[in-house]
Structures are given as structure tokens and as C-alpha cells.
């Protein structure tokens, strides 16, 4: 589907989008109501017990760590935390749900009424037709910058529930249920603590939806609540989308889109759905309320059910657990332990170290990177923050990506990186040498100073020594000397190269340049 089809539709229709985001609390280590470990994959039905298999007589015991993580998630997204809360049973029959009810929350979720501020810049800005292009400003407290805009997306609630098992349909095409002869159930995932966040229908474009989900993921990662893998399903985003003619206030009929396994898929599925609904309305047809499945290969959505089943979940308070009551002091204690969130960290880097927004955002995107940066700047000094950022976003990032490790696991520790930057700034080694030293330190974990010593890489800044070499080089290249003096000053590069070669790369480039210009001039 061409992008301009979406923009064309958005000229005439306004999209109203709300997201439901399920995140497994992988940080909780054990399942929501039993002691089975939380992990991805594995031999089917090996991480199970009477409780998560729903055997007769088994009872749920709440995982307090999972509740704390949920409250933390709520605090990080400006939610109100309920002082009194409880679980409910949501009842429906499905083979992946061992008890045929899901322990979830109903009218008393742990968190409600939050907000996340989302920034949109780049090409996605164009989807906000109503804002008319470049520098725009939306919503309270919004600031126009970089040709982008900010908007605030409300969070209705965050509640806690247990995940279901997984079905494998056999005999049909691509594991879909249609045409399958039978199904297998794996309960390894059953009972995994699952946070469900429901946004307000404040989202107006697929790009805003994508940014919202990305922002949420960065917050969850900063908290450490989940590994947020959309591929492995530990973060799952469903979208509710409807459209209405521009200017209309009444909501259109929505469809729910599922199975988006990446942020791009989320954007594209919503875009597809908006255009599909517009085509229906334009043709005088109606949108049917239904759940639709995004097919990333075919790049289209298809209806999961011919007709929306009117589910009556018969919610009632879970009698196997007593309600939870929290004190303001307990909540404040958790709030005090909140880590610095990505936006605040990025803003701090911009203000304190005058880093460009893009660099600051990348350094602040996850806690490990941010902590590495802070630790290095602590040692190297704030005046070298820019160099720290350059090293981290350059050689260090390349190194950890190539090695497939986390920033925190790099053998070049913040102390070693600070030492390396010090050697460069003090003129002890050149930038080019520093790259060699970094590569070696990354390999061995040796201190840059020791590497420089062992390799005899000390940079020569002594003017007398450099003058002697320059004299030899000028003597050996009279023609080039002639052309320089005739005005072709660009041959200076040739001389620098020659001098550096003679000095096996250890000449201080600044001093070499200075001496050359003087002796040539």
C-alpha cells in the first residue's frame, strides 16, 4: 500500500487509535501465582506445576514482586496507584487457559490515569494532516522543535494478569487454526505475569502509535521490568482503530488489529486498516466491529471471526486471594527507587553536557548505556563528555554490537575509556593511535596507558625532533617544496604523510603541521 494512499485518506478522515499493550514481567523470575520459572521457549510443558496447569484443588498465591513491578510501571507513566485493589476472574473457555478463567483485574486495577508524552519528527510528521506540515505544537506543554511535534497520550489503566499457554495448530497452513486437524497446547507460558496497559484513544496516526509503543518500551527497559521482545512475544501490541470524517465528533466503528510483531508492523497494520476502512466508507459500505489479524508477509489484515462474539466474561472477585491494600508510604518507597527515565536522562545530557539531541537520546535509550556514559563522564570530567559520547556511539557501540554483548559487559570499562580519552586529550597519543589502543583494550581488557607503553606508541611532540625529520623530508622532495611555495598549499598533506611515516605514526599531528608550515613558509 502506497504511503500517499494513507495521507490521501487522512486528508478526509481522522483516525482514532487506542493501544492495548501486554508486557510479560520477565524480571519477576517466577510465574504470577506459582513458583515455576519465567523463560521463553523450552521443551513444551516442562515449566509447569499443579497451579499453572489448573489441576483440581490447586490454588494461586500472588507473586508480590510482579505486583511491585506493575506499581513501578504505573509510577513511571504518571499513573495513580490504587490504595485498594484486587484480582477478578475473567471467565471464558479456551484450551490454552488451564482453569478456563484468567485471573485478571476488572474495576480495581493497580494503576490508572497515566500519561506519556510522545515526540514525532521526521517523515511521520506528515501523517498529522491537521497540523499542516513543519513546526507544529500539539497538546498542553507541547514544544515545537526540529520540525516535529509532541503530543500527550493518556493511559487508561495498567493491570496485572496471568498469561495463557500457547496453542500449536497442526495440519492447517502456517500453524493457523483454519484447516487444522488438531491442536497441541504448551503451558510453559501459562501463568507468566502479564501487565496490560490500555491507552486512551488519543492516538491520531500510525506514526504516533509507533512512537507511543517505542516510548513505552524504552521506559519498561529503563525500569528493567521486561526484556520487551516483540519477536518472542514478551511485548505484544494490539491496536483499536476507527475513522471518522474530519470534523465529526461521533466515533466510527472500530476494528481490533492483532499480531504485529514489530514497531514497523504496528505502523503498517494500522495504516492498512485506516485505508481499508476508508475504502469501505467511500464505497458506501459499513465497517464491521471485529478482530483482524495482520499478515506481515501479505501486508494486509484479515478478519479472525466472521462476527464479533458477544463475550460475557462473568467477572467476579477472585475468592482465592484477599484484596490488596497499599499504604501511601509503601508507594512512596517504590517511587523513591524509580530509576531515571529515558526522557529525563536525555534532557539532562542536553542541558549538562550540551550534547546534540540525537546523541543524547541514543545514550539515554537504555539504562545500561546511560549508566556507562554517566560513569565514564564521572571519571573523565564533564568537559570531556562530548568525547565520551563520540567514543560510545562510535567504536564502543560498533564493538558491543559486533561482539553481541551488552554495553555493561564490554571489557573497556568506563574507567578504561576515560583513561583512553585522557591520553588523547593530553596529546600523549593521536586519535588514530587511540583507535588501535581501543581495539586492543576491547580485546584484552588491558589499560590503555599500559598498551601505549608496551607498544611504544608515545606520541612525539618535541619540536626539535620533528624539525629534524621535517628537514630530511623537505630535502628529499624539492619539487613538492617548489609547488607549495608557488601557492599549491594542498601538498601540505603529502608532507604530513611523509613525516608521519618517518616517525612511524608517532608524531603529534598538530606539532608536525605547525613545524611544516613554518619551515616551508
Amino acid at each position: 500500500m502506497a504511503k500517499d494512499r494513507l495521507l490521501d485518506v487522512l486528508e478526509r478522515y481522522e483516525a482514532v487509535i487506542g493501544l492495548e499493550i501486554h508486557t510479560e514481567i520477565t524480571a519477576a523470575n517466577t510465574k504470577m501465582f506459582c513458583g515455576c520459572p519465567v523463560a521463553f521457549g523450552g521443551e513444551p510443558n516442562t515449566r509447569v506445576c499443579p497451579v499453572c496447569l489448573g489441576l483440581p484443588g490447586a490454588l494461586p498465591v500472588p507473586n508480590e514482586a510482579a505486583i511491585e513491578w506493575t506499581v513501578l510501571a504505573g509510577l513511571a507513566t504518571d499513573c495513580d496507584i490504587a490504595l485498594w485493589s484486587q484480582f477478578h476472574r475473567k471467565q471464558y473457555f479456551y484450551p490454552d487457559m488451564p482453569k478456563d478463567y484468567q485471573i485478571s483485574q476488572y474495576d480495581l486495577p493497580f494503576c490508572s490515569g497515566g500519561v506519556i508524552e510522545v515526540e514525532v519528527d521526521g517523515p511521520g510528521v506528515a501523517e498529522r494532516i491537521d497540523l499542516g506540515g513543519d513546526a507544529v505544537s500539539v497538546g498542553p506543554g507541547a514544544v515545537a522543535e526540529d520540525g516535529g511535534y509532541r503530543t500527550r497520550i493518556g493511559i487508561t489503566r495498567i493491570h496485572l494478569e496471568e498469561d495463557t499457554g500457547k496453542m500449536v495448530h497442526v495440519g492447517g497452513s502456517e500453524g493457523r487454526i483454519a484447516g487444522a486437524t488438531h491442536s497441541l497446547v504448551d503451558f510453559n507460558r501459562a501463568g507468566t505475569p502479564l501487565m496490560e496497559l490500555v491507552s486512551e484513544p488519543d492516538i491520531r496516526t500510525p506514526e504516533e502509535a509507533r512512537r507511543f509503543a517505542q516510548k513505552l518500551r524504552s521506559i519498561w527497559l529503563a525500569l528493567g521490568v521486561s526484556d520487551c521482545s516483540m519477536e518472542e512475544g514478551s511485548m505484544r501490541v494490539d491496536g483499536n482503530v476507527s475513522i471518522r470524517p474530519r470534523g465529526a465528533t461521533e466515533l466510527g466503528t472500530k476494528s481490533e488489529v492483532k499480531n504485529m510483531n514489530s514497531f514497523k508492523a504496528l505502523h503498517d497494520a494500522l495504516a492498512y486498516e485506516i485505508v481499508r476502512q476508508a475504502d469501505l466508507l467511500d464505497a458506501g459500505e459499513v465497517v464491521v466491529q471485529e478482530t483482524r489479524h495482520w499478515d506481515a508477509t501479505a501486508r494486509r489484515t484479515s478478519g479472525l471471526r466472521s462476527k464479533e462474539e458477544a463475550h460475557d466474561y462473568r467477572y467476579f472477585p477472585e475468592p482465592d486471594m484477599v484484596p490488596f491494600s497499599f499504604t501511601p508510604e509503601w508507594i512512596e518507597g517504590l517511587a523513591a527507587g524509580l530509576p531515571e527515565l529515558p526522557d529525563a536522562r536525555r534532557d539532562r545530557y542536553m542541558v549538562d553536557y550540551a550534547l546534540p539531541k540525537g546523541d543524547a537520546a541514543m545514550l539515554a535509550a537504555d539504562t545500561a548505556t546511560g549508566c556507562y556514559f554517566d560513569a565514564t563522564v564521572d571519571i573523565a570530567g564533564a568537559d570531556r563528555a562530548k568525547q565520551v559520547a563520540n567514543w560510545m556511539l562510535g567504536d564502543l557501540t560498533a564493538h558491543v554490537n559486533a561482539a553481541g554483548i551488552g554495553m555493561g559487559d564490554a571489557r573497556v570499562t568506563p574507567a578504561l575509556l576515560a583513561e583512553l580519552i585522557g591520553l588523547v586529550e593530553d596529546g600523549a597519543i593521536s586519535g588514530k593511535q587511540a583507535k588501535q589502543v581501543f581495539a586492543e583494550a576491547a580485546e584484552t581488557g588491558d589499560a590503555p596507558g599500559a598498551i601505549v607503553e608496551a607498544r611504544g606508541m608515545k606520541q612525539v611532540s618535541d619540536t626539535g625532533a620533528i624539525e629534524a625529520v621535517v628537514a630530511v623530508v623537505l630535502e628529499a622532495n624539492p619539487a613538492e617544496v617548489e609547488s607549495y611555495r608557488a601557492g599549491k598549499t594542498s601538498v601540505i598533506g603529502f608532507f604530513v604523510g611523509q613525516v608521519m611515516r618517518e616517525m612511524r605514526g608517532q608524531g603529534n599531528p598538530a606539532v608536525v603541521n605547525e613545524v611544516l608550515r613554518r619551515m616551508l613558509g
Partner: protein
Amino acid sequence: MSALDLSSLSARQVRDGVAAGDFSARELADASYARIQALDADVHAFLQLTPALAYEAADRIDAARVAGEELPPLAGVPAGIKDNMNLIGTRTTCASRMLESYESVYDCTAVRRLLDAGALPIGKLNMDEFAFGSSTENSAFGPTRNPWSLDCVPGGSSGGSAASVAAGMVSISLGSDTGGSIRQPAALTGTVGLKPTYGRVSRYGVVAFGSSLDQIGPFGKTVDDAALALEAIAGEDPYDATSAAATVEPYAAVLDGDVRGLRVGLVTDILEVEGCAAEVRQSVLDAAKMFAALGADVAEVTLPSAKHGLAAYYVIGPAEASSNLARFDGIRYGHRVDDAADVIDLYSRSRTEGFGPETIRRIMLGTYALSAGYYDAYYGQAQKARTLIIQDFRKAFEQFDVLLTPTTPEPAFRFGEKSDPYTMYLNDFYTIPVNLAGNCAISVPSGLCSESGMPLGLQIIGDHFAETTVLRAAAAYEKALGFDTTPPLVRGRV
């Protein structure tokens, strides 16, 4: 046949005899199985006998005694387990076709504690299917008969638990009580049955009926035996989030028969209930007089909302049951049709075939009560009634230590006599409010009906976690009354 007659021994005498070397645990297991052999073809208390487990436990006790080790408090005591409690090595059927071949893969906490205390697991006991009923007539495997008269029901749902103790097949047994399922059969079989405070005994491993109402409790021939058994099974359990941290007291050690100064409330306003036999009323009034004679301070008290208990219970109980029984869907275990067209067909037919009529009735009732548009009118309203009943009890226990009511409106009835569900439900009129309020209560024999010769029961209700007070009062009454708990039929047969 063994020379040992279990019906003439209390659990305390059994375990003291084992400790003294008067008889071995193995001999006790022999005696238990001999009586079952002699009587259970008529009584049908057991659904399953577990001699391998019982003799293994007996041998362990006997070896420990020979080795001079200290014996656990229920060493060698033959015990029966209601068939809704899980025990590895047994089937746990809930007397239902649905779970006819279901084998336990873990142990119910209360059962585990009972066995750790040295009791011998003789077998699994009959019950109304999934504990829905007051007569065991709802068992998918045939009813249990009352050892006092084989024409009469033993009560239910823990009818097998009551009958096995009454007939002297075992010394103690475990039952579960959601609306009276321990106390009502205890009353109907002349045994002692205790429903502990909600949270006193772990529910982990007992197949749930009404999760906010269920409690496991003991049957015994004496109050002392019930106290010994409660001591073994009570206490907090990390596997049950509703189990309470309240201290487990040495219940049996304080039964000295002294009730002087005990504040006893005679509940008067519900004595006149529909169908309450005059003789039942009189036996409660007599009991009150007896307490007064023993030095207790007796006064009248009312529980104005208790009469709404039955209606509230038949909304809340089925609502919770409809949810708890959803898992019996034929997918992972239990009865399953083998020619299902699709998953809905599999659910629908497996459940229709696997469940009996009363179970289906409760599921339908509960599903309806929780449905959108009806929730407030039924479940919400029932919870309000429940709150009023809780307040009644709270108020009463500000003035009284224990309350007296009949356990049942009438003694044991004949098979088939109560064919419509409502008449059957009325049998639990006095016991249900206690479950709704979460209090503890005991049923202790209060004599025989002069007309039918069947036992009557007195219900003594206590405050939350006041089992000690209830047991003290019951023991004093038991001693003063001097009721002979051995059914004539049993005496004649062995």
C-alpha cells in the same frame, strides 16, 4: 477378624495404645479393613481402599516404636479421607464420572499434615458429587447409608466421612464443609464434626466448590478426637493465600469440661424455622439448660439476618462453583468424548456426560447469577446479605463466647424422601450462615430422636479462630450428656 474393635476406641486411646505397645499400627490397619470388609457392602462409605499406603504408614510407625523414637501425635490412628482431597497414590474422583479415573499428582496440605502426624490412610470416602448435596445421593457411584439405619441417608456432602467414623471403620476422617457438609452429616450419624474458621486449615489440594466458603475439618467419635485431628491439620500454608497466620493452639489439651462463666447465647429467632422438628428445638433448649447447670452464663440472642443465609448461599456458592468447575473441560484430564466435532462440541458433551444433574444445576445457577445484567441483582445482592450476616455474628460475639443452634432442622431422612432440591437445601439452614460469616462451629451429638431413633446434633458456633472455646464447650456438653456414639446396628454386626 482382628480382636481389636475400633468402634470401642477413641483416636486418643488408639494412639496411646500404640505408644504403649498394646497393639501395633499394623494391627490397627487390619482392624480397620476387617470392619470395612464386614460392613461396607451395606454402608458404602468408601470409594477406594488404599491398603498399600496404610500398611506402609503402619510399618513406619511400628518401626519407629521399636526403635524407641518419639511417636507423632496420631501414630497408628486409622483415618479416612473425603474423595475431594488429593493424595498421591490415590484417585481423587469427587464422586463424579468426570474424575472417575483422575489420579492425584500432588498432596492436599491438610491430608499431608494428617499423615505426617502418623495417621494411617485407610481409603477415600464417598460424598455428594463435587460436594453438592446433603445426603450422598448425588454420588455418581451410589449413596452411602447411615449406620444408624440403612434406610436413611448419612447426610452430606461428607456422608462417607461421617458414616465411616460412625461405623467404627476408621477413628477419624477428614471432610469439607462449604454450607454444612461436615456438621450436617455429623449430626445425622451421631458423630462429632468440626468446621474450622475460614483460613484455619489450608484449602490447598481440596477440589474447590465455593472458594470463599470451603473449609476442611475433622470427624471423630469424641470432641477430643476432633481436637487432636484439628491440631494436626491446622495452620498457615504458603500454598493457600487465604490461610491464616493465627496461632494453632493445643486444642485437645484444654478440654477440661469447665465452662463456668462461659457466655453462651441461645439463638432463638431461627428456632422456629419451617420444618424444624419440635424435638430438635427441645434438644437445643435442653442443651442451654445443661450449660447453665454447668455454670455457664446463658442468655438469649438473635441473628436477624441469618434467615437470608440460605438464599445468599445458593447464589454465592453456585457462582463460585460454576467458575471452579470450568476447568473440568475434557482438555487436559477427566472425562472426554472421543468423537467431538470441534472444541465446543468437546466441551459441551464431555461436561454433559461427566457431570451429574445436581452439579449441572449448580453450574447453571452460578453462571446465570454472574451473567451481565444479573450480577448486581443476584451476586451483588447476595454479598450484601452476607455482609449483614457477618455483622450479626460480630455483634453476637461481642456479648457471647459461643452460640447454640440445632445443626439440622430434623434427624436423618430416608433415601428419596427429599426429591425437590429446595427441601433438601433447607437441611443446611442452620449451618450455612456460619460459612457465609467464616466462623467456626462444631456439631456434637445431642441425643436420639424418640420417634425414629436417629441421632440429633447440637451446633456450637464460635468467633473467628475461637476453636479452643468451641471445643471446650462441646467437650463439657458431651461429658454431661453421656451420649453413646455406637449405632446399635454396628454393635450387632461385629
